[in-house]
């Protein structure tokens, strides 16, 4: 049952009154309409704001504007909040606020590297296996995906970490190796749909090389999936980092919210909660912001999903 039967396209009412100026702007692109919907979604805009604030904090740390004294140990142990140490100090007398700020940079480093790399991998392998669906290439890629999905995540990360023996990128590599599979699966499905569309058939008829067709014509049409997946992977990466840091498999140097929470496990038993509360609050707010942003993005790009 529909209010607007399919034969009533937006142009129909304009045709009834040819003299009147067109009341509706012509059909805008997917991205234009998505942007409009996104801007009208309060939760999504709040999420975007939160992410932007954290990003500014991270950029400031990169540029050395703040968070420079995160490892300094001069102050007293477990000091309470004060004007000098906003959130107090750790067991070693380090400023908790400085550490939390510096950790924002770590979170963005991990999130961006993992999200970018696994999205590129996922796009590439997904497009390849979708374009060559039901062939040997597709079979091999599906097999690799199946294998990686069958190995429990933390077991795999631990194995990679030990196999790479202290390589600072071990955690990133393990995350990328596991996270690209979902993106690839989604892209594969979309590419199978796109493959039979006219513009791809035209490109094929012109005799373009399959790789050119994939990179120039197919992958750009999966950007909406890639963008949403990248935000989901970003969240997964910074959440996994916390757990991996606790297991001793996290980042090699610097400080992260995960390391702060790992440190705090002994402190909370002694009744010192500041380190734990500050690190988990920073983590929670950023992840929450990203989740809202990601949800808004999905709703904006797929209106059918929003109306459910």
């Amino acid at each position: 049952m529909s209010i607007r039967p399919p034969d009533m396209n937006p142009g129909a009412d304009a045709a009834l009154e040819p003299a009147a100026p067109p009341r509706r702007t012509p059909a805008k692109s997917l991205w234009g309409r998505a942007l409009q919907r996104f801007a009208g979604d309060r939760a999504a805009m709040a999420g975007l704001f939160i992410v932007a604030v954290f990003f500014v904090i991270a950029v400031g740390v990169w540029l050395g504007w703040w968070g420079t004294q995160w490892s300094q140990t001069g102050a007293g142990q477990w000091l309470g909040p004060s004007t000098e140490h906003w959130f107090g100090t750790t067991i070693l007398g380090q400023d908790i606020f400085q550490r939390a700020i510096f950790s924002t940079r770590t979170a963005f480093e991990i999130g961006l590297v993992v999200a970018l790399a696994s999205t590129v991998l996922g796009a590439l392998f997904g497009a390849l296996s979708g374009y060559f669906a039901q062939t040997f290439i597709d079979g091999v890629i599906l097999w690799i995906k199946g294998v990686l999905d069958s190995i429990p995540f933390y077991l795999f990360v631990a194995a990679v970490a030990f196999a790479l023996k202290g390589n600072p990128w071990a955690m990133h590599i393990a995350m990328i190796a596991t996270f690209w599979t979902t993106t690839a699966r989604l892209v594969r499905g979309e590419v199978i749909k796109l493959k039979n569309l006219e513009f791809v058939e035209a490109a094929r008829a012109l005799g373009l090389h399959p790789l050119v067709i994939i990179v120039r014509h197919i992958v750009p049409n999966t950007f909406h999936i890639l963008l949403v997946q990248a935000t989901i992977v970003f969240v997964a990466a910074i959440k996994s980092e916390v757990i991996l840091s606790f297991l001793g498999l996290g980042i090699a140097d610097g400080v992260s919210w995960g390391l702060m929470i790992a440190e705090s496990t002994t402190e909370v038993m002694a009744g010192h909660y500041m380190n734990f509360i500050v690190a988990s609050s920073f983590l929670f707010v950023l992840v929450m912001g990203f989740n809202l942003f990601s949800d808004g993005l999905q709703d904006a790009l797929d209106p059918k999903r929003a109306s459910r």
Partner: protein
Amino acid sequence: MSIVQNNDSPLLSVENLSVDFSTEAGCVRAVDDVSFQVRPGQTLGIVGESGCGKSVTSLAIMGLLPHPAGRIAAGAVRLRLDGPDSVDLAGLPERRMRRLRGAELSMIFQEPMTALNPVFTVGSQMVDILARHERLSRRQARDRAIEMLARVGIPLPQKRIDEYPHELSGGMRQRVMIAMALSCRPGLLIADEPTTALDVTTQAQVLEQIVELQREMGMAVILITHDLGVIAETCDEALVMYCGRVVEQAPVDALFRAPRHRYTQGLIEAIPRIRRRRLERLPVIPGMVPDLSALPPGCRFSARCGHASDRCRAEQPALESHGASRVACFHPADPT
């Protein structure tokens, strides 16, 4: 009102019903000020193009408007129960409405392929309805279900009853729907495009079955269709809807002999006639159905009407009685 000529008081009377839908483009009125009555045993056809509000009207009667997008904005839907009392279905609490659905008023839908629950057998779905409304045991309900399946012309009902919907053909599934809808002997059956999704031979059989069962069981039927041929074959009276409003209501023979509203005229002229020897281009109604969110101020058909005057474009015509018919038009055709 002239349509109620005999002494039977109406079984269902829809009074000034309006239904609003909230959409992305804002609030639209899908059904606007619709009134009609159905007497016991009568067959009323509602005809119109897709989007004219005929299905929404039927969903509003059943209390099945999609929630929360659609709601009854005004009007009443009175159903006469035993005795002279009637209830207003529009204001009935869901709990009481639920007891009426499937028992006093039933509905069959367009899509026999998807309207049955795919993971339960035909029998289990029928037994659920009978056990719910008739307080029968599962055993008794099953016997009754087999009986109903036989009545709607399903061969080997004892075997069919244990099959799943995907094991039946489209025509069989629609027969099962009819059996389900009639199993509790409702006073009113609403059939929303019951044959549209079927192939032509099956269409005729299923329609015949509905007409036959109606005679046997004496219920009233509201038949909703876009196909005037179906109306001509099965209905006593017809209601023509356009853009959410009733534009004409008339006994079927009068409607086909002398349509008054220009829209009805256009619809009837557009029916292909085999008797014509020469192949002519079928006359079509020019233009498109206007968007419900951007309706013209006057008569909704004015932009497509060859007889439209300035008054038509400025003012909405009301539904007025002309003999046995009602027409909403400032310049109706002569009843010749």
